[in-house]
């Protein structure tokens, strides 16, 4: 409030004066609201109205002056009173109101402001009052300067200015009228508005009492008088004050802002270029370190008591499985330079993990994990065909030790956190109690995991198959990019497919997988259909069917299989997403929200009673999406294989099968 008022006093552009005075008045209103008393709130509301009326009029006056005199520079104006009497009258009323001269409306709100400031007690009882008076004083000074330097005195330059037509002066004149009327009878004009706004602001019923005269004892009167006198003195001493102002250096907001932003940007550049210099391992290291630090901080800043939940008894068979899993994981760690071996060991870990899921009452997870494991390992095996078979040993001992320590620390943290979690009862009742209770009556399926996926949290699953579809499309786009790059094609052509086996296509494997194909497809359909009631469902079924196809690629070669596979993978993914979408939209026609499912039982002779659910159709979309995504990645590798040397046309080179 004070600062903007001071700046307004030393601006030369009429509009700049008014703009800074607006900033000052906004400061005043905020100050009043900040006082927090009902009286201050109603003063603030009154000032909003008063300020709107006189400031709008003044801006229009500035516009008129600019229009007539062709300049808004107050140093070139002056003495316009004679040439523009009407505009002068309007400016006189409005700027005296801004200065807080009675009986205009600016006086009312300024009085209330000073009254409230006089009652405020901050640090000392009189500090706020002095500051408020100083603000009022500056306000008087710039108001009078606006008026006097524009309209009074002698003309500093020759302008053939004259009053404009009523189109230009009517609006400010109306506002000037309002300034006078609302100043004379405030309760009848602004009273209801102020009451309503102040009541809404404070949340209590307020009836403001606005009056011109509060008596001689009111401190506001004397503060007002001091402000008026001081303001007039400022105007009189203006050239001298101006010289002091121009001579003193002052902070420029823009410079401060630029410096602050520059410092911030510089710091972030340094941080980014240190942590994120393109080195993946450095980025991962920093991320892990931060996660570890945050976890440690969270642990150390709270109390800790050991958990009390009863634990499962240790059993022999699971323990043996655990030992194998742990050895395989450790072996991967130490033998990862041999990539094929590491991949096989990873597969062992994944398979034992799925056995663990089965043991811990998660048959759906076990099915999914085992089929994903097969697909992932096969895909990576196929990809390994194109990559070096060994990783060179190139890390320094320091690096090994550093990475090892971080790995052990994160592993310990994650393990202890999991242990702490498992040895405690949940803090809140489980959401899934609802899912369990509603699985059969609400979603029509007995497999609670599947009903959660396709029904209760169907929207989530819908998003996930879209993500999967996008991942597959990224692979598709990547394939186009690689196959159009000359370098990549050259390098592909120089790759010789590893020929470790004597016969790349053993007859038993080729024939066996072909017989297995229809069987595997049937298993896929079976798993899909039972999914709603027993472990299974669209995700697993999609993976099982993909494995059936993958086997053909493994046994008979990329090219042979590719020629016989006549469907478009992108189309499959698109179909999946659309099927899921339309299942969701169909619910709208029943007047239900998106993805609400329904179900019914039908009898088709000679089959048993069959349950039909819309959730199954949704699951079909999931199935298509998963199948399409897996097949697309596979097809990508097979496209690449077609560009290598030793193109492998399939079993015995015959194309007749």
């Amino acid at each position, binding site marked *: 409030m004070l600062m903007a008022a001071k700046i307004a006093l030393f601006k030369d552009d009429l509009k700049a004066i008014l703009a800074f005075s607006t900033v000052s008045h906004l400061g005043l209103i905020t100050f009043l609201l900040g006082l927090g008393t009902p009286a201050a709130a109603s003063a603030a509301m009154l000032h909003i109205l008063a300020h709107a009326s006189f400031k709008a009029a003044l801006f229009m006056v500035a516009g008129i002056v600019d229009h007539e005199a062709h300049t808004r520079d107050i140093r070139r104006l002056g003495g316009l009173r004679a040439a523009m009497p009407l505009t002068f009258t309007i400016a006189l009323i409005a700027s005296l109101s801004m200065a807080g001269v009675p009986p205009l409306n600016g006086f009312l709100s300024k009085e209330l402001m000073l009254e409230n400031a006089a009652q405020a007690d901050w640090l000392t009882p009189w500090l706020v009052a002095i500051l408020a008076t100083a603000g009022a004083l500056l306000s008087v000074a710039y108001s009078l300067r606006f008026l006097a330097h524009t309209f009074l005195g002698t003309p500093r330059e020759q302008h053939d200015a004259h009053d404009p037509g009523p189109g230009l002066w009517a609006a400010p004149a109306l506002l000037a009228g309002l300034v006078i009327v609302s100043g004379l009878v405030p309760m009848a004009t602004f009273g209801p508005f102020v009451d309503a706004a102040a009541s809404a602001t404070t949340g209590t019923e307020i009836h403001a009492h606005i009056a011109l005269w509060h008596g001689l004892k009111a401190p506001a009167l004397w503060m007002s008088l001091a402000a008026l006198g001081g303001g007039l003195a400022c105007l009189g001493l203006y050239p001298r004050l101006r010289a002091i102002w121009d001579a003193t250096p002052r902070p420029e907001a823009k410079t401060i802002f630029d410096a602050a932003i520059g410092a911030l940007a510089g710091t972030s550049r340094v941080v980014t270029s240190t942590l994120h210099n393109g080195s993946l391992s450095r980025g991962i290291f920093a991320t892990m370190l931060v996660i570890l630090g945050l976890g440690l901080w969270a642990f150390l800043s709270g109390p800790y008591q050991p958990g009390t939940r009863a634990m499962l008894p240790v059993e022999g068979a699971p323990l043996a499985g655990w030992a194998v899993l742990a050895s395989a994981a450790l072996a991967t760690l130490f033998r990862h330079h041999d990539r094929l071996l590491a991949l096989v060991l990873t597969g062992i870990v994944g398979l034992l993990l799925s056995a663990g899921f089965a043991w811990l009452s998660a048959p759906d997870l076990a099915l999914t994990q085992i089929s994903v494991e097969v*697909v992932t390992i096969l895909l990576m095996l196929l990809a390994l065909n194109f990559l070096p078979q060994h*990783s060179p040993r190139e890390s320094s001992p320091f690096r090994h030790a550093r990475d090892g320590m971080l*790995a052990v620390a994160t592993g310990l943290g994650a393990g202890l956190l999991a242990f702490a979690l498992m040895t405690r009862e949940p803090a809140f009742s489980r959401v899934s109690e609802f899912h369990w209770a509603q699985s059969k009556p609400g979603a029509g399926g007995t497999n609670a995991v599947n009903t959660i996926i396709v029904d209760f949290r169907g929207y989530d699953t819908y998003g996930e198959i879209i993500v999967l579809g996008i991942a597959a499309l990224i692979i598709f786009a990547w394939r186009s990019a690689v196959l159009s790059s000359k370098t990549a094609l050259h390098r592909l052509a120089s790759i010789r497919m590893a020929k470790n086996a004597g016969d790349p296509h053993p007859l038993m494997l080729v024939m066996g997988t072909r017989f297995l194909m229809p069987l595997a497809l049937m298993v896929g359909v079976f798993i899909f259909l039972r999914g709603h009631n027993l472990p299974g469902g669209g995700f697993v079924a999609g993976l099982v069917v993909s494995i059936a196809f993958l086997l053909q690629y493994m046994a008979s070669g990329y090219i042979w299989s590719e020629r016989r596979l006549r469907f478009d993978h992108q189309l499959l993914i698109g179909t999946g997403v659309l099927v899921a979408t339309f299942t969701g939209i169909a619910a709208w026609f029943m007047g239900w929200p998106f993805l609400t499912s329904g179900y019914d039982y039908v009898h088709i002779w000679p089959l048993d009673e069959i349950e039909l659910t819309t959730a199954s159709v949704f699951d079909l979309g999931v199935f298509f999406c998963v199948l399409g995504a897996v097949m697309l990645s596979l097809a990508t590798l097979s496209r690449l294989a077609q560009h290598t040397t030793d193109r492998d046309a399939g079993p015995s080179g015959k194309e007749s099968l």
Partner: protein
Amino acid sequence: MEIFVAATVGLLTAVGVYLMLRLRSFPVILGLTFLSYAVNLFIFAAGRIRTAAAPIVGTTDTPTDPLPQALVLTAIVISFGMTAVIVMMALGSYLELGHDRVDPDQGEDDTPAPAGKETGA
């Protein structure tokens, strides 16, 4: 058995983090696979572990928590999708650059670049 499940989470995390900090793309991918095993097992274990209590209506009255299972199931499939993407990206960068280092700071081609001028572009 809780202690062994927790130890598995810890071990898989440690192996995953260590492999992710290696300098070649293939171990990094394996590391990511291990880390997703660990995360999936962790989320699953957050539902508390029970044996012989598969959440299938009619087979038990006190089932294990089905919600983490549903979350992990989709997570497994999504992590497959992501693994497939990074496998392809690793393959692409190898074919394009002639090496499979994940850090840009050092290194020439491992394999002699075939005729062609865009090498390393």
